[in-house]
């Protein structure tokens, strides 16, 4: 037992509370938020190292032993995701310093930002299905605030839809937890897994499949998989760039993480229906995302649809359920968080310069802003998975796993999608950055140099993540092993089993 793993939740929580009290003093807020997120990065990195050395870390809150109390569990996957979250949060934070505007800063922007991180880190760390719901709500509440801050018409309109969708999915979540509780009589995730496997001996009850599909709907709504992504392009279009980067990089990934967790830990006994459904939906998400990404002539929309493609690729890896494909999924998940944050921040700079996100009205940016242009180019290549950049290894492993699981056409579509992703993002590059330079109103006021710091760091991380993948690989493999063999997780949480 170790108290260490609660720190990535506790630090942003305390910071968020502190920031509420100093909401009118902007410089002080920036310093507090900045320093606390650096500390959070340090502790999450130490946590990853700790998990690497001594295995899965658990914390029974107030010493109520699992499965009776609330347990926090940090296996390698959640530790890595917490680390990525902390890094992205820090970079989005320093990007906000120069772009978010005083009005938002005075209206609790940094506090809501920190509460969002509490929810995300909490959802990654919790080992209790009901606490997952609670952390989801913490995260969603903060995201409502971030989405609506500023109060423009489009934001208000999109917030209403976003909240409505999330309220319904939260109700479904409660219903799913209720059904699960009535079947297995426990809330601890490791204990649920044990009870389901006891119930599944011989003939698995059909109700488990119903619950699995209910969970898929709930998390699919949050993670924006195929028929349930309808709310996302609109809602994510409204907020400013750093908020959009946080949402695109973190919020949907929490849904993906939850699907991965439940489908590898709970519902792995009878994969006939549930995992077939998951792989079908994953492939449909890829197709739907590709269609959207190619169809739109708007930077934000193109990148938003790319989120859906990435979610599809990751979940395809999860549905194949081989060690290779799970490794690929985790690899790709972390890659995607980093690169989506970078792309949204870069798109934010483009929009700040041009005053619009319509590609027909932007051209020739690379002449005046070569740094911006080339950073975007590298990020685009990484997104499409050109070796040796970060998207390549993950996608390779996902495809390999797909072939191993004899899911040929699915793996083929994942491969094909890379080409179309490259096409969609090159469309941005060719139309926005090449061509004759134009003059834009108010572009001189944009502090491009300072705003570039965060995305450049993210792109550098992405390059190292890809080029140095042999150093990262053991960590990812350890994470995938836990997913492929739930016994490791169960043993770490419920010591006596």
């Amino acid at each position, binding site marked *: 037992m170790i108290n260490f793993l609660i720190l990535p939740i506790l630090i942003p929580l305390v910071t968020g509370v502190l920031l509420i009290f100093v909401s009118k003093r902007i410089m002080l807020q920036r310093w507090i938020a900045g320093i606390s997120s650096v500390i959070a990065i340090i502790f999450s990195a130490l946590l990853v190292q700790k998990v690497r050395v001594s295995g899965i870390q658990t914390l029974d809150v107030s010493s109520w032993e699992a499965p009776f109390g609330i347990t926090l569990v940090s296996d390698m996957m959640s530790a890595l995701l917490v680390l990525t979250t902390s890094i992205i949060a820090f970079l989005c934070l320093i990007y906000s310093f120069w772009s978010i505007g005083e009005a938002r800063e005075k209206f609790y922007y940094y506090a809501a930002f920190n509460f969002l991180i509490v929810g995300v880190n909490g959802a990654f760390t919790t080992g209790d299905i*009901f606490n997952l*719901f*609670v952390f989801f*709500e913490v995260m*969603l*509440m903060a995201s*409502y605030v971030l989405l*609506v801050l500023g*109060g*423009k*018409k*489009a934001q*208000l*309109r999109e*917030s*209403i839809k976003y*909240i*409505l969708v999330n*309220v*319904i999915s*939260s*109700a*479904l979540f*409660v*219903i799913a*937890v*209720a*059904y699960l*509780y*009535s079947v297995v009589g426990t*809330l601890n995730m490791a204990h649920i897994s044990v009870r389901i496997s006891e119930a599944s001996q011989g003939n698995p009850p059909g109700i488990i499949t119903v619950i699995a599909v209910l969970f898929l709907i709930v998390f699919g709504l949050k993670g924006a998989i195929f028929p349930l992504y309808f709310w996302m392009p609109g809602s994510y*279009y409204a907020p400013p760039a750093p908020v959009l980067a946080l949402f695109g990089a973190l919020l949907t990934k929490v849904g993906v993480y939850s699907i991965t967790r439940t489908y590898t830990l709970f519902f792995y006994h009878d994969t006939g229906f549930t995992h077939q459904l998951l792989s079908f939906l994953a492939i449909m998400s890829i197709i739907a995302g590709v269609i959207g990404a190619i169809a739109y002539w708007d930077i934000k929309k193109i990148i938003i649809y790319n989120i859906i493609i990435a979610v599809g690729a990751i979940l395809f890896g999860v549905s194949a359920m081989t060690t290779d494909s799970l490794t690929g999924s985790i690899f790709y998940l972390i890659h995607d968080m980093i690169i989506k944050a970078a792309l949204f921040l870069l798109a934010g700079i483009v929009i700040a310069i041009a005053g619009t996100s319509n590609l027909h009205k932007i051209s020739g940016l690379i002449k005046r802003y070569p740094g911006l242009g080339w950073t975007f180019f590298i990020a685009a290549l990484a997104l499409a998975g050109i070796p040796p950049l970060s998207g390549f290894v993950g996608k390779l492993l996902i495809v390999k796993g797909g072939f191993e699981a004899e899911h040929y056409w699915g793996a083929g579509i994942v491969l094909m999608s890379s080409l179309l992703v490259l096409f969609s993002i090159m469309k941005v590059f060719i139309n926005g950055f090449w061509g004759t330079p134009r003059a834009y109103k108010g572009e001189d006021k944009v502090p491009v140099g300072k705003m570039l710091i965060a995305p450049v760091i993210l792109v550098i991380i992405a390059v190292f993540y890809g080029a140095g993948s042999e150093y990262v690989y053991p960590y990812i493999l350890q994470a995938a092993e836990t997913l492929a063999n739930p016994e490791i997780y169960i043993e770490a949480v419920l010591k006596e089993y």
Partner: protein
Amino acid sequence: MEILMAFVIGILFMSATYLMLSKSLLRIIVGTGLLSHGAHMLILTMGGLKEGSAPLLGEKAPYTDPIPQALILTAIVISFGVTAFFLVLAYRAYQELGTDNMDRMRGTEGND
């Protein structure tokens, strides 16, 4: 008793769905309220409605399962908060957009 509860929950969900499909924003919010009430009742029912003593040491068995009640308490607080936020947002949207009709809130960047 559980059968009766099942019917009550079903009626709650039905009314919630009906209300959420209407155009008026206020009716939609009432609908979300009913939906979360239905979900809370479902948790309570799923824990089993059998009679028993309080789950304290030394009391006579059988005990009533306390966990569903703890869950409902949490879920109620959360749905209370979300509903409050939603109401404020609806009021603000009404002020800004001049309508509470979801059909007339439609729009793209061009016609804001």
